[in-house]
């Protein structure tokens, strides 16, 4: 009963909607999940089992939406991986196989760092004050990515061909490792991955596509790993709210990924950088004086 009162259904839906948007927009979902409840005066403990269990459900929903949105791409990529394993090599014109292995190579550092550091970093930086400062730094990172981006010639008309030609193995490791910044509340995983992609010469659209493809196994695996919590005793009293939050997250994540894939065809990270910097500084001041 006490648990249910801590995350009411309206709060669960609001948190789910925010999670779906902020997971995919380069503005840090973890940071917002720390800052927003504190700003609204909600008595939610960030490291309490019931809240972590709730987050598992919303993350799983976001991963399922991403998987569904890029379903045809994933089918091609998995077939490409199978072909390359069978042939014991990647054919020069096999874009799907190359992209698949780039995603595998990029996922390994993020996965391992996530497995080993997630709980430690979350415990270390779970205060709204720290999250606000890191949100502002996330804005600085996005500004820097725009400033330092390499403009490589975009010769191929196919998205995946461009990505697989532009991104090398070491660069995939770099983008994958950059994603790990998202383990710190306030830094955005997708923002770090897009920044890495821009730095290595991808266009905004390709950097976003690569970041979303990289995100799917990471978010999905992290959620699946903790799914037993939702089914076990830790889920008692919060399952209904988690379902409501997950549906809300799925809805907003779908709209977000649709919007962002069109947005990045022509536009940049600058508006998100401005938002993170402004919101981070404003929240830092608020938490410092309150």
């Amino acid at each position, binding site marked *: 009963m006490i648990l249910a009162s801590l995350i009411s259904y309206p709060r669960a839906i609001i948190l789910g909607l925010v999670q779906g948007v902020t997971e995919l927009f380069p503005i840090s979902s973890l940071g917002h999940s720390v800052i927003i409840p504190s700003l609204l005066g909600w008595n939610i403990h960030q490291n309490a089992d019931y809240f972590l269990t709730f987050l598992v459900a919303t993350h799983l929903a976001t991963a399922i939406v991403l998987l569904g949105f890029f379903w045809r791409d994933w089918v091609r990529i998995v077939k490409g991986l199978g072909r390359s*394993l069978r042939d*014991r*090599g990647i054919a020069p014109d096999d874009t799907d196989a190359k992209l698949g292995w780039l995603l*595998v190579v990029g996922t*390994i550092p993020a*996965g*391992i760092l996530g497995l*080993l550091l997630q709980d430690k970093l979350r415990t270390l930086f779970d205060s709204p004050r720290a999250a606000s400062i890191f949100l502002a730094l996330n804005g600085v990172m996005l500004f820097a990515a725009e400033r330092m981006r390499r403009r490589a010639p975009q010769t191929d008309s196919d998205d995946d061909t461009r990505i697989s030609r532009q991104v090398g193995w070491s660069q995939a490791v770099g983008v994958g490792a950059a994603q790990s910044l998202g383990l710190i509340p306030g830094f955005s995983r997708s923002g770090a991955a897009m920044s890495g992609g821009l730095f290595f010469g991808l266009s905004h659209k390709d950097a976003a596509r690569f970041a979303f493809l990289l995100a799917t196994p990471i978010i999905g695996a992290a959620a699946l*790993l903790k799914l037993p919590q939702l089914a076990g005793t830790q889920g008692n009293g919060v399952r209904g709210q988690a379902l409501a939050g997950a549906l809300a997250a799925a809805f907003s994540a779908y709209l977000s990924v649709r919007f962002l894939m069109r947005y990045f065809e022509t536009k940049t990270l600058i508006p998100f950088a401005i938002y993170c910097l402004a919101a981070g500084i404003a929240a830092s001041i608020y938490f410092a004086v309150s």
Partner: protein
Amino acid sequence: MLPLMRNDRWLVIAAVILGVVLIVISIVYFAEPAKSLPSFFPGHQAGSSHHHTKHGIAALLLGIACLVFAWFRSAPKKSPPAPA
């Protein structure tokens, strides 16, 4: 060409050994509680019955990655097509 092939062979052997060792380590992490892990293993803690599943998954992923690397690296070299 020959020295490169020799290097490749050693690289493949090293990757296979490393892959197998990492998979064995992952099984130890899955099977043994923290108190029973060898003392040089990260996560060893006297008296703790906690299973370091995440360490196990990390070791397993790395082990599989090493074996996949060896699989690709040991593929027979394709000869270039004869000029027409």
